[in-house]
Every structure is written in structure tokens, then in C-alpha cells.
């Protein structure tokens, strides 16, 4: 039912997605598919009905009981040893499928513990260097072609190496800010309600909905609203009038269908000034959101994609699902949702950027980068202005960039270098405090008995 109407109504705003593109979508954007998979309940066109949820819940309950029993048993065997939850889950799943495994549980656990310990990174291993190389090497393969269309066809997003640099530099504003705005249940099913929300979000300037004519002889300005666009944007002439009245030192009146604007003390120059401010006057919407695209996603309903980002304000709009809506502006996420959310978005963005280019970097390396960036409570860049520039060791900082300045400043301040890191120890010619260099051996002499 929404298909036919929306197609005719507004081609620019609502784009029906053909079924074919589903495959390419899956490869292209991991983020969206992940989100969808949470909500998918095996129906393509229809969006989950509550009845289905109940059935699944019942099955879940029965499974949960069995799961609990087995995972309890596993925990008993584990005693104080640690295994990640994902491994325990995998084992319980297998044991539930194949009951004959149950008596062997003890053996399975001891073996997996053994394997798990084997796979842990060794103490004193240089995980940072491994991470840097693991991201850096495939990074050389990245295309310099920066402008691609990610996920959403019409929105231009910086991708590839420039985007990765942007993430790692912790820029305050990304070069192409973008938001994925999900809607609440009632809104995501209806195209009209989705459009209503979109109109509240997208910035509408007076120039978009009305013609502004300056009458230079009488020193008045006429604002001539366009009825069609007004309806499309969901505003009225009264609302226009109200926002015009907020401008200082003018008077606005409604005359027939036009708005007549007179100046308090008329002059040619002021008229032109007012004319300019009128053109740029915000009538509706949120600052920073330049353009909006509504799409119908299978098994999700209508989703709004926006060019430009303003997380604080968008989350407050009624109808927006504040728990799933995200932006690619890392600093904004840190500001609104906290440092842990920022860590998550760094991982997600960096991983997706690499994935987009067909590079398979293990998530753990990126997690390490994100951990370092967020370690001191604020989002810090990697590089001169961030992590590398704030190292405690003078020699290490001097070895990185602007050598003379760092040495000079350090001597003025009387800094002491503890020679704890890698660069310092290489400079002075000592074994580095890493790997085999981190352990000291003491030989036990056997004295011969005479």
C-alpha cells in the first residue's frame, strides 16, 4: 500500500529500493545490515508484527533454561579460570545440539582453556607495533579516489584513506558529516509520518518556500510564499510570519497572501541588508542538516539519511528513535553519549572504512587504536597533537617530530627521562623493554664438588 502512492508522490524524497540491490548493499555497508539483522524476523515486505515476537520468546525461554543449565555446569568446571562468553556460548550451543557431548564436557573445557591460553598474546609482546603494521600494510592499498557513495546513493561520503586519517586524527568536524536517523515504531511504517519527521529535521530557509521581492522605490519587501512548497515542507504562512517577526527593527504584516515587511527607519542600505538576512532565514529544521533522504529499507521501514549532522538536536525530535540513531561525527558522539560510545563509533567507522575498500583488518587492532585514543577520558588524536605529542619521555617525543623544540623545552623545564619506552632505549643503545628484552635471566651456577 505505501509503495504505489509514494512512488507517484515524491520521487526526490522517497526512494523505493529495488530488491536486486539487496546483495550489493550487504557487502557495501556492514553497519546497516548489522542493525537490520537485530530486527529481522523473516518477512521481507511486512515489518515484524507482535505475534511473531511472542512465539520466538517462548522458544527462547525453553532454550534459555537448557542454556543456563549447561553454562552453569561449565562455570563449575571452569572454577576460577576465564573463558570469553562467546566461547562458552559456542560450547553450550554445540552441547545442546549433540547430547552425547555432555559427559565429555570436562574434557572439552580443559582443552579449550588450553587452546585459549595458547592464543592469548604473550606478555611484553609489542601489540601496538603489530596493530600499526596490520592496519598500515593494507592501508597502502587504499585508493586515493576519495568520493564514493556509501550505502545511500545520493549522499556523498568521504571514504578510503582520507576518511581513515580523519578518524585517527579525531577531527572536530568530519569533512562529510552524515547521520543515519532511525524512527520509532509508529513512524517508520508510514511514509507520511516519516516525511513529517524529516521536515522537522531538514533545514528549510525562507528562500526555499517563498519568493522575496524587494521594492526599492517604496522601500518595502514582499515575501510571496509558494503554496505548493509550503505544503511539501509542512509549514504555513503564519509560521513564516512568526519567524520573520524575530528579525529586529522591522515590522511584518500579512497582506492577502503576501507578507509585507516595512523597516523601522527605512533606508536603501538597510533594506538590502534585511533582504539578505531574509534569504538566509531559518524557517524550520535543525542547524547543520543540509539535505535529507528518506528510504524504505526492507524489514525496517522508512529510514532517514541526512547530509550534515547535529546529534544533540536530532535525538530530541519526536518520532526519532534516540537509541539507534547515529552519526559519523565522532566528537559529537563523545559529547552526547560519552567516551565509551565514542570508542565504539571509532571502531565501527574505522572498520567499515577498511571493509569498504575490501581490506580485512582484524577488529582487535582497531580496538587497540580506539582504546589508546580514548584512554584519558577525551578523544585524542594519534599524532603530533595527540598521543605521540603527549608522551612522557622527552627522547621519544624528540624522536617523533620537531626534535629541537622538544629538547629545548625539556631542558628548560629540567625533565627527567626514565628510559622506559622503545625509542629512548634505541637512542641510548640499550635493550628495549619489550619481548625478550623485558625479561632478565639469572644464571644458576653449579659449583663442582671437590
Amino acid at each position, binding site marked *: 500500500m505505501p509503495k504505489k502512492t509514494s512512488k507517484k508522490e515524491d520521487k526526490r524524497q522517497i526512494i523505493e529500493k529495488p530488491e536486486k540491490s539487496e546483495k550489493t548493499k550487504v557487502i557495501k555497508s556492514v553497519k546497516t545490515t548489522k*542493525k537490520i539483522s537485530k530486527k529481522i524476523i523473516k518477512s521481507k515486505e511486512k515489518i515484524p508484527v507482535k505475534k511473531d515476537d511472542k512465539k520466538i520468546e517462548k522458544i527462547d525461554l525453553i532454550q534459555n533454561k537448557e542454556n543456563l543449565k549447561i553454562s552453569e555446569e561449565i562455570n563449575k568446571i571452569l572454577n576460577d579460570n576465564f573463558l*570469553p*562468553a*562467546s*566461547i562458552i*556460548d559456542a560450547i553450550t550451543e554445540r552441547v545442546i545440539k549433540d547430547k552425547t557431548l555432555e559427559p565429555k564436557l570436562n574434557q572439552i573445557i580443559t582443552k579449550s582453556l588450553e587452546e585459549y591460553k595458547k592464543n592469548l598474546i604473550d606478555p611484553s609482546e609489542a601489540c601496538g607495533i603489530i596493530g600499526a603494521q596490520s592496519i598500515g600494510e593494507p592501508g597502502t592499498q587504499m585508493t586515493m579516489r576519495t568520493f564514493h557513495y556509501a550505502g545511500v546513493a545520493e549522499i556523498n561520503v568521504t571514504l578510503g584513506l582520507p576518511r581513515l586519517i580523519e578518524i585517527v586524527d579525531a577531527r572536530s568536524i568530519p569533512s562529510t558529516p552524515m547521520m543515519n536517523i532511525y524512527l520509532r515504531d509508529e513512524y517508520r511504517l508510514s511514509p507520511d509520518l516519516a516525511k513529517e519527521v524529516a521536515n*522537522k529535521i531538514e533545514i528549510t530557509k525562507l528562500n526555499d518556500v517563498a519568493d522575496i521581492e524587494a521594492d526599492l522605490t517604496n522601500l518595502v519587501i514582499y515575501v510571496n510564499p509558494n503554496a505548493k512548497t509550503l505544503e511539501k515542507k509542512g509549514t504555513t504562512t503564519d*509560521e513564516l510570519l*512568526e*519567524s520573520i517577526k524575530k528579525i529586529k527593527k522591522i515590522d511584518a504584516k500579512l497582506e492577502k497572501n503576501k507578507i509585507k515587511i516595512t523597516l523601522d527607519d527605512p533606508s536603501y542600505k538597510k533594506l538590502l541588508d534585511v533582504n539578505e538576512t531574509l534569504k538566509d532565514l531559518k*524557517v*524550520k529544521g535543525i542547524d547543520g542538516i543540509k539535505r535529507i533522504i528518506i528510504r524504505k529499507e526492507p524489514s525496517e521501514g522508512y529510514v532517514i539519511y541526512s547530509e550534515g549532522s547535529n546529534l544533540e538536536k536530532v*535525538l*530530541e*525530535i*519526536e518520532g*526519532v528513535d*534516540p*537509541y*539507534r540513531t*547515529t552519526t559519523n561525527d565522532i566528537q559529537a*558522539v563523545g*559529547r*552526547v*553519549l*560519552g*567516551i*565509551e*560510545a565514542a570508542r*565504539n*563509533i571509532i571502531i565501527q567507522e574505522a572498520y567499515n572504512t577498511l571493509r569498504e575498500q575490501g581490506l580485512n583488518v582484524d*577488529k*582487535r587492532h582497531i580496538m587497540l587504536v580506539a*582504546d589508546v585514543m*580514548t*584512554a*584519558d*577520558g*577525551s578523544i585524542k588524536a594519534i599524532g603530533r597533537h595527540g598521543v605521540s605529542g603527549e608522551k612522557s619521555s622527552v627522547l621519544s617525543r624528540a624522536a617523533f617530530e620537531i626534535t629541537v623544540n622538544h629538547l629545548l623545552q625539556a631542558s628548560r623545564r629540567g625533565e627527567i627521562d626514565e628510559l622506559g619506552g622503545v625509542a629512548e632505549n634505541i637512542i641510548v643503545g640499550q635493550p628495549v623493554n619489550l619481548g625478550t628484552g623485558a625479561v632478565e635471566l639469572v644464571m644458576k651456577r653449579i659449583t663442582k664438588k671437590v
Partner: protein
Amino acid sequence: MATEKKQNFDIMNHELVPFHTILSDHEKGELLKKYHVETNNLPKILDNDPVSVFIGAKPGQIVKIVRKSNTAKEAISYRLVIESE
């Protein structure tokens, strides 16, 4: 312009925000003993971080974070609350 109704929401329920709790003094002592660390060695969280404000964490306390992880399903991490400048 008509004033829009603002919707209230709880940032802790956002997909990107993992579960945070404040450790009690007893738990704090046990944690430091278990990992042989001092509070300063832990990663930090600012006291004006939206999450710290929400859960009422004060400088000096330790926040336990249960992250959803792709590799381990669940990963536990700790952050020391510090004063923001």
C-alpha cells in the same frame, strides 16, 4: 514557529553506550589487588562525561563497563573517574 515537543530519552539505552556501574569500595580494592594495578594505571573517564553525570560518578571512583564485543561477546573494562579541567 511552534515550539516542538522535546522527547526525553535515556542515553544509557543507546546502542553505542555500554553498561556502566560504579564499583563499591570493597569491589575497588579487590579489583586493584586482582590485577596488581594502581588506580592511575586504569583508563580514565571524565566526571563531566554524559554517562558519569547520569550515573553520578565522582572523581576517584571506578566505573565498571561491560562492553558488547564482537570477538568475546562481552568484555569487562574499568575506568577511573577523573576531574575535568
